[in-house]
């Protein structure tokens, strides 16, 4: 090796050495953290000192010297700002495409407002995202993976003692699990099912006051909100006389809506003998009839499929009926009885047509089996005649299959 090459090699070693030591000096005493941190999205970008400070070139307690910039475990009140050092920096975040407004949103959230007032019991970044092992939200083990978000929020919001301090009930998590949204998220594992953050926000999480709830529900239930605002209840909500969606559907524990809502919710505000309750009962009747007709047609088609596979050709008609019914569901929120009647009539009429076609096919199947029985009768008769004719035509065959002479 010539002299120039040796110099170059020594120079390279000098460059690499601090990096190697940086890794080695922290993990010498914290090997478990190294394993955890290796799985973090930060592992390729940050070293330990990025958050904890200190001197990575020293092995031993001297590395923790305050004069070396060591901050140790960051105080909870400092965590948002510390994370924001990078996450609110557009230049740092641009390569990963992450937004840089989380910190600003956090300070506007209820969590951030209380933290700014010195309450360190509220959630900070690490409570939801983790500390050393921070993984992306699409990773199922992430605490912010959609199906884990309720449990992550519930770590605080299902804690009765902690919530009692803020006068917040701690039953939301259990209520949400049993709700139509919880079933969609946990049982059906629907990719678009809402989590806590869908309604309350994530970094800017805030409680919702009554008037805002309808707007938030409308982020997903767009047409329902439009029809609601077109109807008399929309005007009442605007006037502050009722709380949009939650007056009838509740919140957190929102059940699967069905016809029984007409029997239980209208009377909360309207007299039992009022026109409003009567309108509700009419809506219940027409919607229920269309729903029953659809269900019956669907059941009959399903039952028919194994014996008459071509019945699947009726499915597009049934989908058309279902489309009318699905249109009627949001329209009912406008309390537009005539329009709901039109839509449900179409749904019911098509369902009845489909049922009539299924019944026709059932009758056709019956005729087919009768035809098959008749065909077999003819076949057996013709075969018997053929065999008898053969026997009468010639003397019986010998044992070896040959004709007798």
């Amino acid at each position, binding site marked *: 090796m010539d002299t120039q090459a040796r110099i170059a090699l020594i120079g390279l070693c000098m460059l690499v050495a601090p990096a190697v030591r940086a890794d080695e000096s922290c993990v010498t005493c914290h090997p478990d953290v190294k394993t955890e941190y290796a799985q973090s999205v930060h592992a390729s970008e940050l070293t330990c000192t990025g958050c904890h400070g200190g001197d990575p070139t020293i092995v031993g307690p001297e590395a923790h010297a305050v004069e070396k910039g060591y901050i140790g475990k960051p105080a909870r009140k400092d965590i948002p700002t510390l994370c924001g050092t990078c996450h609110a920096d557009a230049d740092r975040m641009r390569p990963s495409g992450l937004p840089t407004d989380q910190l600003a949103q956090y300070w506007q959230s209820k969590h951030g407002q209380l933290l700014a007032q010195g309450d360190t019991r509220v959630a900070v970044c690490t409570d939801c995202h983790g500390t050393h092992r921070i993984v992306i939200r699409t990773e199922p083990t992430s605490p912010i993976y959609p199906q884990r978000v309720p449990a992550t929020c519930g770590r605080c919001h299902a804690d009765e003692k902690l919530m009692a301090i803020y006068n917040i009930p701690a039953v939301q998590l259990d209520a949400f699990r049993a709700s139509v949204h919880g079933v969609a998220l946990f049982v059906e594992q629907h990719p678009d099912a809402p989590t806590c953050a869908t309604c309350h926000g994530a970094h800017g999480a805030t409680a919702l006051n009554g008037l805002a709830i309808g707007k938030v529900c409308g982020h997903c239930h767009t047409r329902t909100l439009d029809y609601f605002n077109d109807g008399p209840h929309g005007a009442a909500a605007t006037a502050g006389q009722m709380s949009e969606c939650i007056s009838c559907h509740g919140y957190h524990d929102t059940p699967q809506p069905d016809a029984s809502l007409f029997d239980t919710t209208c009377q909360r505000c309207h007299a039992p003998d009022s026109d409003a309750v009567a309108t509700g009962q009419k809506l219940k009747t027409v919607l229920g009839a269309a729903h029953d007709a659809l269900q019956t047609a669907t059941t009959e088609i399903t039952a028919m499929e194994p014996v008459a*596979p*071509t019945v699947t050709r009726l499915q597009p008609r049934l989908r058309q009926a279902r489309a009318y019914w699905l249109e009627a569901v949001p329209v009912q929120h406008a309390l537009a009885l005539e329009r709901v009647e039109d839509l449900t009539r179409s749904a019911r009429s098509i369902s009845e047509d489909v049922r009539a076609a299924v019944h026709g096919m059932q009758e056709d199947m019956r005729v087919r089996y009768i*035809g*098959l029985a008749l065909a077999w009768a003819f076949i057996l008769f013709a075969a018997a005649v053929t*065999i008898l004719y053969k026997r009468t035509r010639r003397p019986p065959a010998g044992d070896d299959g040959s004709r007798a002479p």
Partner: protein
Amino acid sequence: MLARGIESVRRVWDQPVPAALSRRHILAGLALFFFVLQGVTGILLLVYYRPSVDAAYHSIGVINDEVNLGWLVRSLHVWGSDLLILCGLLHLLRVYFARAYRAPRRFGWVFGMLLMVVVLAFGFTGGLLPWDQFAYWSVDAAKDTIAAIPVVGSSLLNVFWGGWDLGEEVLLRFYAFHVAILPWIAIGCLAGHLILSLRADGTPAADAPPALASRVTVADGALDALALSLLVGGLLLTVAVVYPQPLLAPADPLSPLPHVQPRWYLLPARWLLRHLPGTAGAVVVATLFIVLLAVPFIDRKPHESAAGGVIRWSLGIVAVAAWLFMALMQYLS
């Protein structure tokens, strides 16, 4: 003149059947019966079927739901193809185990094997014609299989697909093969098979006593064939009525149908192609076919030794067991 005609029919009626024919040919006779049935039902379907992407599915729907007994004709056609292939395979096994492929029937065997391939091609090309989801995705799945065949794979693909994606052009090609090209090839192969097999009149298979066949008259044979055809036709009718052919949703290139299985007779080939790496599966399938084709030229001795018999039976039984095993594994996968 009529009397003379009746008299000549009566004379033939009382003649002994050719010595080469016997009850051992029941499977071949049934295969021929189903072959003719396929022709008849196919022509009936041809009247209503329209070979275009926009109209094919609708025309099958019309056949199913509007044409009198159209559903039955379609069901008979599809089930008949399965039974034709089943009878053909059983006939092939009978000839193999009876060692009836030896000279002078060697080329009859070769034509029979070619006919088998043509019948399978009928099944493959006919599968696309309904243009429903199963038709589309089962044929689409076969594209990679065909492409994997060494040497001729790309040429075959070019013949069937013509370089296009699955659509109007490919549907028309499959239709042309199914109704215009393959029938003539099949008739040619069938003629060759029958002529070369029956030409060996008086030289029946080694295990067939010639004296027996010659004592049966044409009348006896025709009456037996009629009774058997009635019963088998009845069974086919029953299957066609009880299990009519489905018609799924129209073909949708944007909605793949999960877990599409080929027809039962292609299950072993699919299993082999799935489990052997690269083109090895196609090489094995092609090699097995060539070996089967060459059986009469490998086993040429007039009299088989005891050891030879054991080897031949063992190979046959192992082949059948392997075929059933692969079909089952593919079906359960």
